[in-house]
């Protein structure tokens, strides 16, 4: 008898205890893969209803496409359109917004540019981020910037220090010294093209280079690998050592950064889209680019554009599916990613440290999360949005892309909450919504040999009337490279028009 009563008592208590899991709303965000796969599968598209003659078309409304448009307009050229496949422009800088905050869907910061990054500075002066040589304080990432969950507690900064041995610390010091030497060579620049020279580093993977240099500290190796996963979506063993070194040796910020906003680089995209509104056509997927005499015919939806020049700012791997006689793109590797935005209507309990902007869990396959409300001027914040980043670096990109499509939302939701639970045991009581964006070809991956790649060089130098402008031509997808490639393409188009 008492056994049944016992069960009843426990059941009654479980119902009352505050620790029950709550329902989480959410789903997948439209990532354009369905519409994109129509191209891959060579699906038939309807014939055009109208043909418009125009000198220039920009394909792709991400940072590269928008930067090309920004450059054309700045140089006084106004006779062009920009065609974006999705309903919202921005590409990897796209963003979202809900009743709590604006938040990024992918790229979420720009490192404070050094003096050499003239174009980035020019844009930032235009947008009020840089005024008379001073960076606007509210766009610089607020304190505390980063924290790492290691050995069951949060520590300040991402470089592991909790329980670090003298050996670990010595290796970090030696590593920093080596990176300073590389920086001094002037070969590791942003934009990369300004300094890059053929290098034996490109024949090694980053982990081979660490072996060669006898870096054995597990903390250091985790840290380097984290950097590769974060910027390239690849493990250190799959990253060219040249790119791995570039991550650490290229940046010389003259201010504590990075530069960021609640909606990440969506802040930039939003302003560029506003400025360039009259050139941008969204929901306009280009499905064919064919030669017609000396011109090109660009087919998008029910409209054909008859143009002199095309700036191809969409990911370069798409070109062979779209363009008649486009060069093959075989050597380019792209990393699949997953991002999620979690709406928290209450904050998890914190014991050690205040929530930072970037919050990383040691030894997790994921990259951690960024807090959208961190850049808020408010002192009291009781609801927030976290953007969770996961570069699927383990295993082959193709297999991971398949997994991205095969698994349902619930699978990813559980995986994400499970990962966060390690550092936030009460996370399931805090999350009211969790939306997931799957990016099959999120960013270019600088594999060993990418720097020396003949194919990459040919596409970079391509002339004629089809010019490539995506950041993947640099081997890695960062804001500065996208902008640089696009501005160069725009200049070249204007030169030959």
């Amino acid at each position: 008898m008492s056994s049944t009563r016992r069960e009843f008592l426990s059941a009654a208590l479980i119902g009352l205890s505050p620790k029950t899991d709550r329902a989480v709303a959410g789903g997948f965000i439209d990532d354009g893969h369905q519409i994109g796969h129509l191209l891959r599968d060579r699906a038939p598209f309807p014939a055009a209803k109208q043909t418009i003659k125009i000198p220039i078309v920009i394909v792709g409304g991400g940072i590269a496409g928008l930067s090309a448009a920004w450059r054309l307009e700045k140089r006084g050229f106004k006779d062009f359109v920009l065609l974006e496949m999705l309903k919202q422009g921005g590409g990897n800088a796209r963003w979202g917004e809900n009743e709590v905050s604006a938040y990024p869907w992918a790229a979420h910061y720009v490192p404070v540019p050094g003096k050499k990054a003239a174009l980035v500075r020019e844009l930032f002066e235009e947008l009020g981020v840089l005024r008379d040589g001073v960076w606007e304080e509210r766009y610089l990432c607020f304190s505390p910037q980063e924290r790492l969950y290691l050995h069951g507690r949060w520590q300040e900064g991402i470089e592991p220090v909790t329980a670090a041995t003298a050996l670990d610390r010595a290796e970090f010091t030696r590593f920093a010294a080596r990176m300073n030497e590389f920086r001094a060579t002037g070969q590791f620049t942003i934009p990369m093209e300004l300094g890059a020279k053929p290098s034996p580093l490109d024949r090694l993977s980053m982990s081979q280079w660490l072996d060669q240099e006898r870096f054995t500290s597990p903390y250091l190796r985790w840290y380097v690998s984290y950097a590769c996963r974060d910027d390239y979506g690849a493990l250190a063993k799959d990253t060219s050592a040249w790119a791995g070194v570039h991550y650490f040796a290229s940046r010389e910020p003259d201010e504590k950064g990075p530069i960021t906003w609640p909606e990440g680089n969506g802040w930039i995209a939003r302003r560029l889209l506003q400025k360039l509104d009259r050139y941008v056509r969204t929901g306009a997927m280009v499905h064919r680019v064919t030669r017609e005499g000396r011109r090109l015919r660009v087919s998008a939806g029910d409209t054909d554009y008859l143009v002199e020049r095309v700036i191809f700012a969409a990911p370069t791997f798409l070109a062979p599916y779209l363009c008649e006689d486009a060069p093959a793109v075989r050597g380019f590797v792209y990393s699949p990613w997953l991002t999620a935005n979690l709406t928290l209507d209450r904050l998890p309990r914190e014991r050690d440290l205040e929530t930072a902007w970037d919050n990383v869990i040691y030894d997790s396959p994921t990259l951690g999360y960024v807090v959208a409300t961190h850049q808020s001027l408010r002192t009291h914040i009781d609801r927030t949005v976290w953007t969770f980043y996961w570069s699927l670096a383990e295993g082959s990109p193709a297999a991971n892309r398949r997994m991205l499509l095969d698994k349902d939302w619930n699978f990813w939701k559980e995986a994400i909450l499970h990962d966060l639970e390690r550092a936030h045991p009460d996370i399931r009581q805090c999350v009211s919504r969790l939306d997931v964006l799957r990016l099959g070809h999120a960013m270019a991956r600088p594999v060993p040999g990418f720097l020396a790649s003949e194919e990459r060089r040919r596409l970079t130098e391509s002339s004629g009337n089809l010019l490539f402008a995506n950041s993947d031509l640099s081997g890695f997808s960062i804001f500065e490279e996208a902008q640089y490639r696009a501005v160069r393409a725009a200049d070249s188009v204007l030169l030959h028009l």
Partner: protein
Amino acid sequence: MPVVLFLSVALIAACGLIYELVAGTLASYLLGDSVFQFSTVIGSYLFAMGVGSYLSRFVTRGLVARFVSIELMVGLVGGFSSAALFLAFAYTQGFQLILYAVVIAIGVLVGLEIPLLMRILKNRLEFREMVAHVLTFDYLGALAASLLFPILLVPKLGMVRSALLFGLINAGVALWSTYLFREELGGRTLLRTACVVVLATLGAGMAGAEKITQAADNNLYADEVIFARDTRYQRIVLTKWKDDVRLFLSSHLQFSSRDEYRYHEALVHPGLASLPGARRVLVLGGGDGLALREILKYPDVASITLVDLDPEMTRLFSTHPYLVTLNQHSLTNPRVHVINADAFVWLDRSSDSYDFIVVDFPDPTNYSLGKLYTTAFYRLMAKHLSAQGLAVVQSTSPLFARQSYWCIVETLKQAGLKTYPYHLYVPSFGEWGFVLAGLHPFEPPVRLPSKLRYLSTSTVPQMFQFPNDMLPVDAEPNRLNDQVLVRYYEHDWREITH
């Protein structure tokens, strides 16, 4: 007869569940980690019930008398369990020991109840029917209790009185049983007397429940707590000892009524009295209305805007009889406009300018509050100053937090303002510092409002002199992207307390 009997089964089942809920909830409230607390409380409680059930076999004679005395014991221990646990938390180091001792004691007693009762009923009903009915009412009672507890008891009665109420029910069932089973009961008078004594004791506890809770809260603060409320933003506590009323926000002392005049006169008058033409004043923070009281001494000031985050705070200081005497009804003065908003965001969206701005925020104990002490904030503040305007900033102690104080001065300078640091002694705080800042040179006032208790025109200039142990030290400016102040502050106060 049977229905009445089964009703008492439902009642004692409810009592048993309530005590378990009270213990689990209290442990979660006071210690946190609710899963662990609930889990261990349920576990030890159920185990103890098992022990009680086992022990029931050793009760062989005088079943009804034993049942009645067990009910009385459950009533006493369970009824006072919540009060005992609160006091144990406030006054002893061994809260957890007492928690589990109480849980096990109640569990053993509750475990004895039903087996004994079934044996009492054994001869009155058919076994099949009896088991079915006893269990049905047992579960019904538990259901009622589990619903009542979160919906009605905790919000309406609170933990202490809920437990006492169910203690009374247990004792009531005991008294009632002496009538229900009177044929099988000898020594009824003695038992009934015991029942009345227990009922009276629990009733007295019920009447004094308020005092018990207060006694527990009082021990956490040195003085008597006269008001305590958790708002969305902070915990507001007012304490009183003789004529000294103190305000604590999230455990940080904000003022003592004995010497707050020193603080607030020094905060307002050196700056405002030097601006004879001042018409518009802004107060950021200062929801206690005490800075307002000082500003209202200037008849030429036409409008004062006060921005404080917490509406509960401004409501309390607009309505509490003692507090409105202290701030002289300043918050409800027609010249005053109260706005409840986050100051940085509000200022960012406002385009008004002011002749005098009082910045009276809590100390920069964390990065969230630290934002209110940055170059970005002070630049924004400077934009809202009229041409000849001045701002005064509460800047923590130049003695105890010397680097923090000079960091605030440096931050104001970096924001393009001329700074005039000064300090005074406030007994309940110690040495305290302010900084006047403006775009134009400041001259100490030649006239002050009449009837000030602390300041005089001759003592004002002295406040701008710093003795050797408070002289400037090197400090970086505090910036949103590099909040050195929070680190200085933590370091400064750690030095003091170690």
